[in-house]
């Protein structure tokens, strides 16, 4: 165990090394593209450079993780625990996948503007701050860094009105959500006299929750609810996912969601363990609403991209069920599910880029009829993704759901698990038709799928994800241990500070 003194500048620099490296590298890439931003080759260069940055950051993260760094003394602004590393690793993976998918995509869509990649890096840095925030202020900063970058990415296809609509919608709703969050932070600060999560937890324990803190908690939940697109704060999600360039939709559904969930879990478990009676019913209600509404509306979609958007709301509902547990097992389940969902969804969005043109908004179930005959590999990949999203045994999605069920059942709760599986059955009604269309319906024309294809980098990233989804689904043992161990460290930093 390497203890790091978070009060000293050197300590902070070490603790934040992954984020610092990533941000610095993003600025370097930005510098490079200010000279080279005209040709497709420039765009590719920026993409590969960004991958290198992600690699550096990942190496720093791994060093911290393997080195077992832990804070010396009082908890400070940033967490030093495997839960942060796990969530940050998911964000890095999502970013790397997004970059690999984007390499060919941007060229194909004629979006030659290499600023795209530094923005992805900055968004990722924001996600990592968000996932590691041990202080509400850092949390807010991380959220904003991430969001501002993603607003721009959402509207990256400037010629497409839908992309601009997505950006505007995301920005307005995001600003609105930030308002809630900030006001919540202010109220919590008023009640606890601090913005540090562990100290808030210590201040609020052992006495009835003050009204001001309860209000603050409620506003925080609303603000976070927007970011994880839980019903009833989900209205923006379908249009934004739909209008954004598809790799960006993938990043939003995986990285952004992962970071926001990690922050939510940390806030609830570190700052408000004593208010568990207050937030559990709210989280349960959000979970039930998200699972039901998300799955029911996804059933009604014709476009695959919109279907994935609505189903991401349903998956947020499943994860909220795990958040509800408020235990280490629950946090571990969130982490594992984020990885399962992230890998699968990124691959699904990536495969979607192969199917269409101009944002893939209009790829419907009918358009993929007979795909299995023309493009067996793409069809197989998409089929595995659908089964994993459905939570079918043999895939990582199943292990994720199983973990959530175990975590919640261990708390003696029966209604949430039953609702979770029943709404999962609903989801079969829209995931299976994808498989059905590809494998069981005849192709509308002989060369209908002639244009379907992936760039080699995208194909590699997607293939790796799909293989990982299956292999980890069959041999989840190691992953389960990592997720469980990461979650167990979550509240170890919560020192019993001065009581009331």
């Amino acid at each position, binding site marked *: 165990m390497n203890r790091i003194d978070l009060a000293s500048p050197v300590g902070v620099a070490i603790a934040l090394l992954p984020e610092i490296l990533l941000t610095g590298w993003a600025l370097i890439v930005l510098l490079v593209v200010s000279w080279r931003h005209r040709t497709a080759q420039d765009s590719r260069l920026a993409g590969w450079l960004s991958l290198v940055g992600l690699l550096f950051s990942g190496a720093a993260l791994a060093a911290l993780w393997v080195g077992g760094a832990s804070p010396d003394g009082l908890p400070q602004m940033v967490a030093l625990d495997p839960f942060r590393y796990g969530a940050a690793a998911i964000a890095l993976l999502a970013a790397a996948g997004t970059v690999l998918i984007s390499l060919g995509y941007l060229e194909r869509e004629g979006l030659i503007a290499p600023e795209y990649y530094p923005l992805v890096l900055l968004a990722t840095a924001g996600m990592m701050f968000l996932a590691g925030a041990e202080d509400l202020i850092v949390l807010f900063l991380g959220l904003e860094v991430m969001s501002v970058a993603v607003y721009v990415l959402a509207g990256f296809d400037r010629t497409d009105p839908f992309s601009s609509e997505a950006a505007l919608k995301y920005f307005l709703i995001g600003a609105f959500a930030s308002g809630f969050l900030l006001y919540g932070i202010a109220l919590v600060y008023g009640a606890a006299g601090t913005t540090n999560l562990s100290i808030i937890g210590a201040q609020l324990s052992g006495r009835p929750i003050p009204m001001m803190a309860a209000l603050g908690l409620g506003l925080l939940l609303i603000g976070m609810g927007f970011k994880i697109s839980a019903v009833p704060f989900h209205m923006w999600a379908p249009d934004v996912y739909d209008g954004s360039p598809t790799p960006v939709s993938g990043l939003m559904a995986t990285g952004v969601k992962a970071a926001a969930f990690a922050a939510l879990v940390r806030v609830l478990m570190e700052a408000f363990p004593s208010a568990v009676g207050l937030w559990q019913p709210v989280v349960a209600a959000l979970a039930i609403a998200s699972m039901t509404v998300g799955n029911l509306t996804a059933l009604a979609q014709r476009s695959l991209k919109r279907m994935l958007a609505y189903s991401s709301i349903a998956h947020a509902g499943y994860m909220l069920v795990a958040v509800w547990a408020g235990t280490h097992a629950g946090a571990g389940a969130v982490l594992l599910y984020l990885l399962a969902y992230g890998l699968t969804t990124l691959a699904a969005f990536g495969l979607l880029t192969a199917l269409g043109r101009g944002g893939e908004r209009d790829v419907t179930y009918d358009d993929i009829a007979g795909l299995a005959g023309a493009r067996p590999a793409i069809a197989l990949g998409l089929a595995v993704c659908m*089964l994993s999203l459905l939570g*079918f*045994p*043999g895939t990582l999605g199943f292990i994720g759901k*199983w973990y959530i*069920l*175990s975590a919640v*059942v*261990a708390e003696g709760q*029966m209604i949430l*698990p*039953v609702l979770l*599986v*029943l709404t*999962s*059955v609903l989801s*079969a*009604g829209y995931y*299976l*038709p994808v498989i*059905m269309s590809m*494998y*069981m*319906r005849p192709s509308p024309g002989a060369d209908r799928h002639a244009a379907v294809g992936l760039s080699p980098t995208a194909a590699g990233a997607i293939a790796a994800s799909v293989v990982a989804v299956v292999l980890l689904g069959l041999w*989840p*043992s190691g992953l*389960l*241990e990592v997720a*469980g161990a990461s979650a167990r460290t979550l509240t170890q930093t919560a020192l019993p500070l001065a009581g009331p």
Partner: protein
Amino acid sequence: MTAFLDSIGYGQWILHALVVLPLLGVVPVLLGPEASAKRTALLVTSLELILSLGLWWALDPGRGTLQLVSNTPWIPGWGISYRVGIDGISLVMVLLTTLLMPISVLGSWRYITRQERGFYALMLALLTGLVGVFIALDLFVFYIFFEIMLIPMYFIIGIWGGPNRLYAAIKFFIYTMAGSLLMLVAIVVLVWRVQAVTGYLSFSYDHLLTNAGAVGPLAPWLFAAFAVAFAIKVPIFPFHTWLPDAHVEAPTAGSVLLAAVMLKIGTYGFLRFAVPFFPQVALSPTVSRIVVVLAVIGIVYGALVAMVQPDIKKLVAYSSVSHLGFVMLGIWGGTVQSVQGSLMIMISHGISTGALFLLIGMIYERRHTREIADYGGIARVVPVFSLIFTVVVLSSIGLPGLNGFVGEFLVLLGSFSAYPLATVIATTGVIFAAAYLLWALQRMIYNRLDKPENERLSDLNGRELALMTPLLIGIVWLGLYPEPVLRRMEPATRRYLQLTQPGAAAPVAAAGPTIEVRP
């Protein structure tokens, strides 16, 4: 024979081999040329059958315990192991599966004309799932096998099925999945409760069986979850509506395996899991009454609906609802005879209905219609087909001397003491069965040869005769001399009864633990 099997260590590897071999077979089927896919599949499934036959001797028929048990840790953190083993009940189900699989492959020889590689690869994957489900002794593993075999069957129906195949495939999938997901929650709850009491986290069957009492007041809910999953699979009225669609739309091999093996997973689930875990709930007067009433409704309703079907395949599909009603009645009959009878019906329904679907497939390949009214008097044109069809129909009716009779007789005999009224009503099911099957037989095979299209039908060829022969042998053998099969199932049956109603089944009662691990 036993000595020979011991000398090659048969018991050590056979259960693993039966699961792995078909999966290995998938590779050459997919990579080989399209034309040789069916030959490879036939080779693999035949090899599987030959390998599995040794189980008949490897299992000690004198004991009702689970034998050949092996345990490989899989996800130790969650107490999950790859744990397999068999007893007399699993034995006959595994043998039924491995017997019907090469026959189904042969039955698809000419029926499947496109995407053959995919079809036979899925058949092999299905074989793994089916064998796995009957030998799994860890609830996690059982659940995985239970679910995973949906995929191959979903594709088999959806790609190679009839005109309405998409609807049938998704209905089949969603029905089964809805039930099994509830069972998943029940499994998690059961394991968690047992862990709370014993302090030991494990999904192993015997551990949960011994300590299932720990669930306390949750037992009715958990039983309900298990029961719904299995009831959909059986299917018990009113959960049966997926069955006619799936059976009719599926290609011949799909129908055969659905009817002959997959339905039995439901009844097997009741015998292996649902009832032994929660006997106080399952055999309580209220639940018993509900199950028996639904079983009897299934028997009579299935028979009556079968009677009015114009489509012979649909007629056979509905007759399954009726036959499986007998199985449920026998399980709840609660005597050695009735449970043995249920098991006998499970086997003989597998053989007879499998044979019927194969025969229907054969005649469909020639005439491309399944409407009963399109046939008539074909006995003169295809005498061999007609003879075999008649024998199979008679066995399905339950003619004494053929296999169908033994099981139904035992069920009715064994259930009469517990449920006299229900048994009497169920007996009408036998009469109805005679009515609908003989009537269909008369309209198709006998009567006058009045359709010119039927005059040019060709009779069965060598392949078709070869694949029917083992089934016919089974039909006659089980009808005349079922004793060896009954003897192998009896200890397991007594064990089951002893678990569910202590004191009822005396003889084997004193014999140690449920599972024996081989040294």
